[in-house]
C-alpha cells in the first residue's frame, strides 16, 4: 500500500492487521447482501464451468489454491475463519492462506508471479492495483464483476472507479477503511465541550478548552504514521490534490497543501502536541488518556473496544473548506500464472465470489463495506462505529490509478515527516518532495510505457 511506507513494519503491524481484517469483513458484507448472486453461487444449478461463468460454481477436480495477503494480527483469524468455512463448503477446493507483512507481500508477490511460483489469489490495496496490473501480476476481473452483478451504482463512485486501470477492472472492492476522529468523551466533558467539534473554529476552541481543563497536550501529531494520511485528508479539505490530471506532476505543494501541513505542524508549535512523536506513541498515549484527540484508521475501533477507555469516534472534522477524508480499500485479486490452469482459475473466481458474498462478519471486525446496499442495511447501521465513519464514504478519496504511484507517495510521506519534526518548513518540505516526485513520475511513465 502506498501509504504504508514499506519498511515501517513493526509499529504499523497492528494497523495493517485491522486494516486487512476490515477488508475481509467488508467483502463478507458485499457477498451477504449481494442479492440473487448468493443463491446462484451456492445453489445446485449451473454445474457447467464455462469460461464465462465468472465464478459461480466449480465442479472440476480437486485443486489447492494459495491465497496470500497481509492480514497479520487481529484480523488474520477472521479471514482464516472465512477460509476454513469456504473450504468446508467447497469440498473440491482447498484454500491455503499465508500472511506476511504488507511490505514483504508487495515485494514477494510480483517476483513470485514472474517466476511462476506465485499465489493464485490475493488481496491488494486499491492504490497498488495499477502498478501490479502494469507489471502483469494480476488478471482483469471484468467477468467476475459481471457475475457478481456488480454495477457502478452498487458502490460508492470513487471506490468503484479506483479499481480500474486502462479501462479494465483489476480488483473487486472488498471494503473501505477511512480515517476517523477518535476522542476521549470524559476529557471533553471535563473541559466543558458539549458537542464534538466538526468545524475548524469548534476544533480550535475545543483544544483551548481541553488545555485549560488541565489536559496539557490534547492532540498529539505523529511524525510518521498516520501523519501523511492526515495530510492527504487535509489537503483535499483545503481544495488541493495530490497530482495533476494526468499524474505527471505532484501538486501537493500548492497553497492548499502548505496550509494543510502548516496546520499539522502548528499542533506542535502551539503546544498541543509534544515534538518527536514516533509511530504508535500517539495511539498508546490516547489509550492511556494522555491525550484527548487522535486521528487514526477505522481499524483501531477493534482494539479500543477491548479497553475500558471512555472513547468515541466521529468523522473527521472539516478543518478546510470542504469535507474530505483519506481511506484505503482492499480489493480481491487473481494473480497471473505462467501456465494457465483453467481449473485453478475457475476455482479462484469461485473463491473471490464467495468471500465477496459472505462479508457480514468481516464488517464486525471494523470495516466499512464498499457496497451501498450493505452500508444502508439495518444490520450494518447497528454496528455503531463503522456506521458513523461510513458517513464519510461520499467524500473519501484515493491516489490516482497510475503505476508506480507509490514511489511518489513515499516522497510526500517523507516530506510530512520532515515538516512535522520541524526539520523543514512545510513549504520547503512539500516543494522538495514535489520536485523529487516529478522526476519519479516521469521515469515511471517511460518505464511503464505510458
Amino acid at each position, binding site marked *: 500500500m502506498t501509504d504504508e511506507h514499506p519498511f515501517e*513494519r*513493526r509499529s504499523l*503491524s*497492528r494497523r495493517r492487521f485491522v486494516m486487512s481484517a476490515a477488508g475481509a469483513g467488508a467483502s463478507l458484507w458485499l457477498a451477504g447482501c449481494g442479492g440473487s448472486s448468493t443463491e446462484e453461487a451456492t445453489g445446485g444449478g449451473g454445474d457447467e464451468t464455462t469460461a464465462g461463468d465468472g465464478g459461480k460454481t466449480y465442479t472440476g477436480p480437486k485443486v489447492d489454491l*494459495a491465497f496470500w495477503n497481509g492480514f*497479520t*494480527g487481529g484480523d*488474520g483469524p477472521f479471514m482464516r475463519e472465512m477460509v476454513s468455512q469456504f473450504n468446508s463448503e467447497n469440498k473440491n477446493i482447498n484454500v*491455503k*492462506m*499465508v*500472511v*506476511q*507483512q504488507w511490505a*514483504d507481500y508487495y515485494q*514477494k508477490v510480483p*517476483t*513470485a508471479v*514472474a*517466476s*511462476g*511460483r506465485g499465489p493464485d489469489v490475493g488481496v491488494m490495496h486499491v492504490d497498488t492495483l495499477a502498478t501490479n496490473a502494469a507489471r502483469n501480476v494480476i488478471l482483469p476481473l471484468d467477468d467476475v464483476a459481471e457475475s457478481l452483478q456488480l454495477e457502478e451504482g452498487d458502490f460508492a463512485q470513487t471506490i468503484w472507479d479506483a479499481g480500474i486501470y486502462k479501462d479494465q477492472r483489476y480488483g473487486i472492492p472488498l471494503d473501505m477503511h477511512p480515517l476517523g476522529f477518535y476522542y476521549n468523551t470524559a476529557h471533553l466533558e471535563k473541559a466543558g465541550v458539549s458537542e464534538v467539534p466538526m468545524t475548524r473554529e469548534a476544533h480550535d476552541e475545543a483544544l483551548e478548552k481541553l488545555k485549560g481543563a488541565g489536559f496539557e497536550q490534547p492532540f498529539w501529531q505523529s511524525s510518521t504514521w498516520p501523519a501523511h494520511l492526515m495530510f492527504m485528508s487535509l489537503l483535499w479539505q483545503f481544495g488541493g490534490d495530490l497530482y495533476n490530471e494526468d499524474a505527471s506532476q505532484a501538486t501537493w505543494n500548492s497553497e492548499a497543501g502548505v496550509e494543510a501541513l502548516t496546520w499539522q505542524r502548528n499542533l506542535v508549535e502551539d503546544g498541543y502536541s509534544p515534538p518527536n512523536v514516533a509511530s504508535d506513541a500517539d495511539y498508546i498515549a490516547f489509550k492511556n488518556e494522555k491525550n484527548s484527540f487522535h486521528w487514526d484508521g477505522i481499524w483501531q475501533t477493534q482494539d479500543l473496544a477491548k479497553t475500558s477507555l471512555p472513547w468515541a469516534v466521529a468523522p473527521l472534522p472539516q478543518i478546510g473548506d470542504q469535507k474530505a477524508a483519506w481511506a484505503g480499500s482492499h480489493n480481491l485479486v487473481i494473480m497471473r500464472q505462467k501456465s494457465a490452469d483453467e481449473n485453478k482459475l475457475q476455482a479462484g473466481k469461485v473463491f473471490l465470489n464467495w468471500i465477496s458474498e459472505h462479508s457480514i462478519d468481516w464488517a464486525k471486525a471494523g470495516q466499512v463495506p464498499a457496497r451501498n446496499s450493505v452500508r444502508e442495511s439495518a444490520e450494518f447501521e447497528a454496528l455503531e462505529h463503522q456506521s458513523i465513519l461510513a458517513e464519510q464514504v461520499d467524500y473519501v478519496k484515493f491516489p490516482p490509478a497510475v503505476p508506480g504511484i507509490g514511489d511518489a507517495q513515499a516522497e510526500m510521506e517523507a516530506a510530512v515527516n520532515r515538516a512535522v519534526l520541524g526539520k523543514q518548513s512545510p513549504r520547503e518540505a512539500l516543494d522538495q518532495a514535489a520536485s523529487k516526485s516529478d522526476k519519479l513520475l516521469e521515469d515511471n511513465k517511460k518505464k511503464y510505457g505510458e
Partner: protein
Amino acid sequence: MATVADEQRPAARSSDGRPPRRAVLTMLGSYLALIALTILFVAPLVYMASTAFKTNQEATRIEPTWVPKEPSTEAFDAILSRSEQTPVFRWFFNSMIAAIGQALIVVATASLAAYALARMEFRGKRVMTAVIISTLFVPPIIFLMPTYVILDKLQWLDSLLAVTIPGAAGALGVFLLRQFFIALPRELEEAAVLDGASPFKIFWRIILPLSKPALATLFLLAFLTNWNDFLLPLFVLFSPESLTLPPGLGLLQGSYTTSYEIIMAGAVVATVPALVLFIIAQRFVIEGVSATGIKG
C-alpha cells in the same frame, strides 16, 4: 604457549612466598570481568529459550520473567500446526540441505582447485591465482543484483539451488586450502611421483587424508556461513515452504509481531543445531577463524 602466558605471570614472589597482592587482585578482577561478560552473553540466550516456553500472556507482560511461571509448549504447537503459514521444520530441513550441500561443494571444488594452484604448473597459473585471490577483496554487494537476474533466467528462484550454488563460488576456501597445501612438506608427494602415482591418486590418497583438519574446518565454516546467510535467501526465496531459517524467522517476526513466544520458538529451532555444532566442533570453528586472521 606457555611463553606468552609468562607475560602475565605474577611477578616475583614476595619474601613470604605468597604471590604479591597486585597479581592476585588482577586475577580476581579479570575473573570478575569475565564472569560479568559471560552473564551478559548468556542471559539473552536464556531469555530467548525461556520465552519460547511461555504463554502469549506471559511473553508480553510488562514485567519479564526469566523462568516461565506457566510453562507451555503452545508456541511450538502453533509453529507445528500452521504448516502452510510457517513451516518452521521445513525451513530447518531446507537450511540443512543448503548448508550441507554448499559446504560439500565448497570442500570438493576448493580442494581440487587449491591443489592445482599449490602444486601444479600450467599456463596462466599466476594470472589465475591472482584473479581468484583478488575477488576476496571485492565487496559482495555488487553480485547481488546480477546474481538475482541470473537466477531468474536459470529459473532457480524460489528453489534450494538458489541458496546452495551461488555462494559456493567464493574464493576463501581456495585461498585457505592453497595456503595449507603449500605448507605441506613435499616429501610424500615427491616419493609418490617417483613411484609413478598419478596426480589424482596422490591427491586422493596422500593429500586429502593429511588435510582432514583443514578440510573439516573449511566444511564447518562454509556450513555456518550458509546456515546463517540472510540477505540472499531473503530475496531469492518467496514461497513459505521454500524458505531457509533466517528469512523464515523474518517471516515469523512479520506475521506474529506481538506473539513473541512464537518468534522465540522459531529462533530456538534455528539456534539449537548451530549451538550444538559449535559445542561439538568448537575448537575447529574457533581455530578456523583464528587461522583466517593470522593468514589474512
